[in-house]
């Protein structure tokens, strides 16, 4: 499947036969997943077979100890084939990283990570909530301690405005206030098994793109031991891990979508060139322009990932909690989410009606529709509003 050269370039995990097989499965079902708006279960099962759901778990708990660059490579490759599969993989790894990097001395979470690897459990996330206006850092739902309960039980109820693959995950990581009297921003993360929960969907997921992520709203109610609350405040988890991991891995989903659209446009131009040997088709110039945009897009995503990797190595990582870093990681999200739409549009312009059609090797409709979700996942206007405030004190360096 992979040539020796490719095996050297890619990390071992994504070069593995089982992962390459998962890529094939994702590609095979991508159009049907999109058309029917269904969960890409074949591809996720193939990822399970490759052990990929445990890649982000450290060696000491049986995982592959993959770092963000390995996970980003896998996200990128998957998203070229099927963006919904790539996004599910990315979101799962974001939850894993949030646990791995902030479990402190929790025995429960150590054992949980071993189970993730052994059982290849898929984790979804419930950070959105009806009534907080899309603000990740505010919750209405709160943990309520159940007094004198055996095992120190807690419960919560949350009206999540969207839970991606909520009906297909094994576990859920939810933001809640740390008590019923806590301020809206005084949040923690709680991990619950869907078997411990009632989860009622509150709508349907019939969308323009990213149809396979199946992300309707849910009302979730859960009761579980207090051990299942991550010991570190969410404010720190968000700043140091969840937000940078999300923006970096999402950007790799979008880069994967655009890279595939670019590839299709390039193939289209080549076919045109072959029809008139000796002349360069007019669309080749458009492709050249698009290639510049792709180079910028890749450089942006790469440099953001390199910066995060060097900052996250420090223990603790104080720079990750600075205003300057918050501005930069928000800039990545805004720029990458705009770049993916622009590049897919350019690919469509190059491919013309061959791109506009929903079938065939030059179709880029699915890519363009998937790309449009990028500016909405944490709305860019919200990030601009945050950065506008932060830039009142932060002075941009070079």
């Amino acid at each position, binding site marked *: 499947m992979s040539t020796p050269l490719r095996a050297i370039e890619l990390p071992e995990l994504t070069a593995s036969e089982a992962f390459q097989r998962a890529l094939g499965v994702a590609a095979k079902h991508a159009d049907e997943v999109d058309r029917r708006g269904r969960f890409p279960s074949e591809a996720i099962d193939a990822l399970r077979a490759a052990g990929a759901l445990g890649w982000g778990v450290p060696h000491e708990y049986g995982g592959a100890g993959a770092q963000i660059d390995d996970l980003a490579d896998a996200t990128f490759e998957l998203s070229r084939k099927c963006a919904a599969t790539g996004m599910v993989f990315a979101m799962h790894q974001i939850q894993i990283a949030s646990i791995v990097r902030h479990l402190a001395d929790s025995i429960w979470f150590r054992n949980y990570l071993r189970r993730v690897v052994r059982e290849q459990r898929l984790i979804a996330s419930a950070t959105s909530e009806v009534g907080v206006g899309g603000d990740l*850092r505010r919750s209405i739902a709160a943990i309520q301690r159940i007094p004198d309960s055996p095992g120190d039980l807690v419960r919560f109820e949350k009206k999540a405005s969207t839970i991606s693959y909520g009906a297909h995950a094994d576990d859920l990581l939810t933001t809640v206030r740390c008590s019923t009297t*806590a*301020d*809206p*921003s*005084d949040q923690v993360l709680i991990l619950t098994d869907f078997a411990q929960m009632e989860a009622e969907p509150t709508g349907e997921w019939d969308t323009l793109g990213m149809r396979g992520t199946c992300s309707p709203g849910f009302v979730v109610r859960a009761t579980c031991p207090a051990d299942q609350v991550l010991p570190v*405040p969410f*404010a*720190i988890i968000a*700043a140091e891990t969840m937000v940078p991991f999300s923006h970096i891995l999402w950007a790799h989903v979008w880069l994967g979508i655009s890279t595939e659209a670019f590839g299709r446009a390039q193939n289209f131009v080549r076919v045109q060139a072959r029809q008139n040997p000796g002349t360069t088709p007019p669309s080749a110039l458009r492709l050249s322009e698009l290639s510049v945009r792709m180079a910028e897009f890749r450089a942006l995503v790469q440099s953001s990932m390199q910066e995060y990797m060097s900052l996250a190595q420090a223990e603790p990582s*104080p*720079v990750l*909690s*600075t*205003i*300057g870093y918050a501005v930069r990681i928000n800039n990545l999200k805004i720029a990458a989410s705009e770049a993916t739409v622009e590049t897919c549009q350019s690919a469509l312009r190059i491919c013309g009606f061959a791109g506009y059609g929903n079938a065939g090797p030059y179709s880029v409709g699915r890519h363009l529709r998937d790309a449009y979700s990028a500016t909405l996942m944490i709305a860019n206007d919200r990030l601009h509003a*945050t950065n506008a*405030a*932060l830039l*009142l*004190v*932060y*002075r941009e*360096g070079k």
Partner: protein
Amino acid sequence: MLPSTESQATEAQKRDRIRQIIKDHAGLGLDFEKVAYSTDLYRAGMTSYASVALMIALENEFELEFPDAMLSRSVFESIDSIASAIESLQRVTQ
């Protein structure tokens, strides 16, 4: 003994000035009297928007500029941490 008592007095004054600025800018909903020097302001409800307003007000009041490395949650989480950040900046400029 005298210089030390004097510096303790200015330290307390400085913390009270910071406390007043927090009262005016940090947007804390709770009974402000409960905010002690070591109270975690973020846990007391200070939002990131409010923290920006607080930073600007502190820069005006103490006539200084926080460098980027200091613009972080840990520096602005309590009156004590703000006071020591201001002290370290004033030490540099003196």
